[in-house]
């Protein structure tokens, strides 16, 4: 901050001579600040280095200080140059961006330029989000620079200069708003003969005869003034500070986004999708400032999801416009946890509506490219901890059976491949269908379900235990050789392939992201083709070995080492299980985690029992089999527990404290009929907002006490699984999802609480309810007399 102050002081002390020359009080009749500004200038002059203190805030009575700054000291014919209208606000006041948000008005600049000069539209700096009560404005505090590029005509007089003028209007608001205006003018000399301190690449020989080797400080961008000016110390210092001003101004302008973007409009939603490989999962936050004023509800939260290099923001659409905007662009602010810096990108040419079909000419090439990337990704996937053990087992079996018939080997290879491809087709079709239906799912969507995560963990643990030698699954999983001998292992190979596909879903390989990201923007057939390429890649190493059995002799001879290797291979699988348990921990909390871990113990028991049943006979076998059966039942119960538990961990103890009843429409109707106040909380385990609200807004003692004091019945409806009653209640209130908080005052007319709850909002709403005694006497509430 002090550095910034220093910069200001340098800027002002050096800019003064020029400013005085530029400021022609007679030329700004509409600026009420003439005298005030002169006084400030004088003050600044007197105070020297302390001048900025007087300048840091606008003169008394003024909330905005406006001035006009040009980047070059002199201008040349046909060479565009930059000027900036600088607005400096009193602390706590703000002016607005091009889309001012829920209220306010953008500044305007109307230029009065000499003949032949043209001005570009304003290049707007990245705005801030300025909340006012429950509304949101977009604008600037402290200081902002509105850059404009001015292009002089191709021919200018050999000497002299021009005067450019701007009528600037703005609205400045704190809580109240005050319109302001200023007439600004600036004299700019033409570049003429003399030493040229910054004759950079921009103003070289092409500037014509009047731009000799010794032309004065000419126009140009900051980049063209890297070398220090040589003529006149004062001028040099002035230039340095001007360059500084414009460097700061340029930093505030969003960079053009290098990625394609589109917005899909539904009745209630506008979904912004930005495709771009640089968008990593490390993006922590993103915010979209739309250029259009009636596209989205500015105050609504913007829901971010990042998937395979694609950033998606779900924006609540404003009811203020039903037609698509002419300009769907805006500024995308991205916060990356890796860089930790905020970056602003200007999104221009944002496509509206459905994803445009890929251009036909490029399409085939792009598909081939994606398919080969997918193939490569699939091959690499074999080395990932999810799949590597499965593949290794198949290869070990292959080594054991190197002597088998080629035809049989080939059949096994093909069965395995078919298993992989069928599984990929099923998963892919389901995924495509879901996306068609509007669900926000991506590859690996199974992992969104704790039960699926749990089941995959169980499956992998069983596999790992088998590798460790706790039990032997026989031909179906490992023994392609035994299967060969028995002529019955083809199904086993098929399922091994399917298993490989399923266990692969939690893993990502290099190249996969790009390929799948592309695939899911394409028609179903192309998406499936890319997916199948991925599957083929996955199956390829094994398929290759079986199709080219000549390679098998290249593999090591079978021996005792294989058993050792098999046991070693168990550990990456155990590691994968550990990771999945960690994922589960995120999803279900400690209580659910206990169920998951109990399930894992039971998998161990089941494996042991299975082995015992295989080796024992008679009663022992029966005991072992019943142990196996019991543990399988236990596993199922534990898995089901995962489904039931999720809602609880997050609400945890507090939910037990704030005692609630499960929601049913009948119960609600009965309470309303009895004129009892009711609080309805419609929530779901997968709704993070709901869980946070419950913990933050509803779980405090104060809220519980307030509920008790007013005799409020708390009904909690859990929408984690489908529940038509809850869906109907949601629809009745125009909602398509949770959370929804309703407070019935006893008259059957609910007030809808905001979707972001704080104890204060809940308490304020509850405080409006009549006291229990009063309620019995008279029904009306303040809101409805």
């Amino acid at each position, binding site marked *: 901050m002090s550095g910034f102050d220093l910069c200001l002081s340098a800027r002002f002390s050096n800019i003064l001579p020029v400013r005085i020359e530029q400021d022609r009080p007679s030329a700004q009749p509409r600026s009420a600040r003439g005298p005030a500004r002169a006084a400030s200038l004088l003050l600044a002059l007197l105070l020297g280095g302390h001048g900025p203190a007087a300048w840091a805030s606008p003169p008394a009575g003024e909330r905005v200080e406006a001035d006009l700054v040009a980047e070059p000291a002199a201008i040349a014919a046909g060479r565009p140059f930059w000027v900036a209208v600088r607005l400096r606000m009193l602390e706590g006041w703000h002016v607005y961006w091009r889309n001012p948000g829920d209220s306010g*008005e953008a500044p305007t600049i109307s230029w009065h330029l000499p003949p032949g000069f043209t001005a570009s539209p304003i290049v707007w700096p990245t705005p801030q989000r300025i909340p006012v009560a429950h509304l949101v404005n977009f604008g600037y505090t402290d200081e902002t620079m509105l850059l404009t590029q001015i292009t002089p005509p191709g021919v200018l007089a050999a000497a002299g200069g021009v005067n450019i003028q701007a009528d600037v209007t703005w609205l400045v*608001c704190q809580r109240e*708003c005050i319109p302001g205006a200023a007439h600004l003018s600036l004299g700019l000399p033409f570049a003429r003969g003399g030493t040229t301190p910054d004759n950079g690449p921009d103003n070289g020989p092409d500037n014509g005869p009047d731009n000799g080797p010794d032309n004065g400080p000419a126009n140009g961008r900051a980049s063209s003034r890297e070398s220090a000016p040589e003529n006149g110390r004062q001028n040099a210092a002035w230039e340095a500070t001007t360059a500084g001003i414009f460097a700061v101004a340029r930093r505030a302008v969003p960079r053009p986004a290098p990625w394609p973007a589109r917005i899909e409009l539904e009745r209630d939603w506008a979904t912004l999708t930005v495709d771009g490989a640089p968008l990593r999962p490390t993006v922590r936050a993103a915010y979209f400032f739309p250029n259009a004023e009636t596209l989205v509800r500015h105050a609504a939260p913007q829901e971010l999801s990042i998937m395979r290099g694609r950033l998606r923001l779900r924006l609540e659409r404003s009811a203020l416009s039903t037609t698509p905007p002419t300009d769907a662009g805006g500024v995308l602010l991205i916060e990356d946890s890796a860089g930790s810096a905020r970056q602003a990108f200007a999104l221009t040419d944002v496509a509206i509506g459905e994803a445009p079909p890929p251009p036909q000419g490029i399409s085939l090439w792009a598909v081939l490219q994606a398919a080969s990337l997918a193939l490569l990704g699939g091959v690499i996937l074999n080395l990932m901890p999810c799949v590597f053990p499965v593949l290794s087992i198949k290869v070990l079996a292959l080594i054991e059976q190197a002597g088998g018939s080629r035809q049989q080997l080939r059949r096994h290879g093909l069965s395995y491949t078919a298993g992989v491809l069928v599984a990929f087709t099923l998963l892919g079709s389901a995924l495509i269908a879901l996306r068609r239906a509007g669900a926000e799912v991506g590859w690996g969507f199974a992992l969104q379900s704790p039960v699926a995560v749990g089941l995959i963990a169980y499956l992998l643990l069983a596999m790992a235990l088998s590798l460790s030698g706790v039990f032997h699954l026989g031909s179906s999983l490992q023994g392609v050789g035994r299967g060969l001998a028995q002529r019955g292992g083809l199904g086993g190979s098929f399922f091994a392939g399917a298993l490989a596909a399923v266990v692969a879903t939690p893993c990502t390989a290099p190249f996969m992201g790009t390929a799948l990201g592309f695939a899911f923007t394409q028609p179903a057939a192309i998406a499936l083709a890319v997916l199948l390429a991925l599957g083929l890649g996955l199956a390829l190493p094994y398929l290759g070995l079986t199709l080219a059995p000549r390679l098998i002799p290249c593999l090591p001879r079978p021996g005792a080492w294989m058993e050792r290797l098999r046991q070693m291979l168990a550990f990456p699988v155990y590691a994968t299980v550990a990771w999945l348990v960690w994922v589960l921990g995120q999803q279900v909390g400690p209580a659910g985690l206990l169920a998951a871990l109990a399930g894992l113990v039971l998998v161990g028991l089941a494996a042991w029992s299975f082995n015992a049943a295989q080796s024992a006979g008679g009663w022992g076998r029966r005991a072992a089999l019943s142990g196996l059966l019991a543990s399988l039942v236990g596993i199922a119960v534990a898995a089901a527990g995962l489904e039931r538990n999720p809602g609880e961990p997050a609400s945890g103890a507090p939910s037990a404290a704030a005692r609630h009843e499960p929601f049913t429409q009948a119960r609600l109707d009965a309470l309303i009929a009895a004129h009892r106040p009711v609080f309805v909380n419609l929530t779901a385990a997968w709704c993070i907002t709901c869980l946070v609200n419950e913990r933050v807004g509803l779980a405090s003692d104060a809220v519980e006490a307030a509920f008790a004091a007013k005799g409020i019945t708390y009904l909690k409806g859990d929408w984690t699984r489908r529940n038509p009653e809850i869906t109907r209640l949601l629809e009745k209130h125009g909602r398509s999802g949770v959370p929804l908080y309703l407070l019935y005052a006893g008259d059957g007319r609910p007030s809808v609480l905001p979707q972001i709850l704080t104890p204060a909002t809940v308490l304020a709403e509850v405080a409006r309810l009549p006291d229990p005694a009063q309620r019995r006497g008279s029904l009306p509430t303040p809101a409805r007399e």
Partner: protein
Amino acid sequence: MQLVARRTVLAASLAGAAAIALDVALAPTIAYQAPQARIGEPAPAFALSDSNGKSVSLADFKGKTIVLEWTNHDCPYVRKHYGGNNMQRLQKKWTAQGVVWLTLISSAPGTEGYVSGEEANKLTLARGAAPSHVLLDPKGEVGRAYGAQTTPHMYVIKGDGSLAYMGGIDDKPTTRLDDLKTAKNFVDAALTELAQGQSVSRTTARPYGCSVKYSS
């Protein structure tokens, strides 16, 4: 036999996992929404005290066309429309034809535009305004229910209780008095169309002005 059983178990668990994954994925994604007044839908009902302390409810005016005007007399945009006699002229023109004109003040106590009933009456008199009622909404409940953002922010409700127009009063989002001459007044247009038994052609516009000074 054993082999078949094992395969069946494997197949079943795979199918099970896929089915559960599908099930979960089919569940709606996180979605929520704050209430928004919508064109064609019933206008949110309310009852408020007017500047004379009388309770006024939307239901009192069943069958009539109703205009809601959010205001804050100190807001420069409101001052444009009252200073230029634009708002008063509209009020007089349409109340004379049986339209109910409700001016609402949602400024919280202590904020700009907040007035007592008495002060509101003085303002009406001083400005020569002609609303049917000035309604006081210091808690901002009605403002929030309608999603009123700015002063002025206008709503037109049809006789059947549905919302016919919402948004800015005209197409010139400025504080310049001169702009009144060239502005296209959307409220006047909507009321004219309704009076002629037509449907409103322009149902929304960007509301412009100062933010409503809600209690935080």
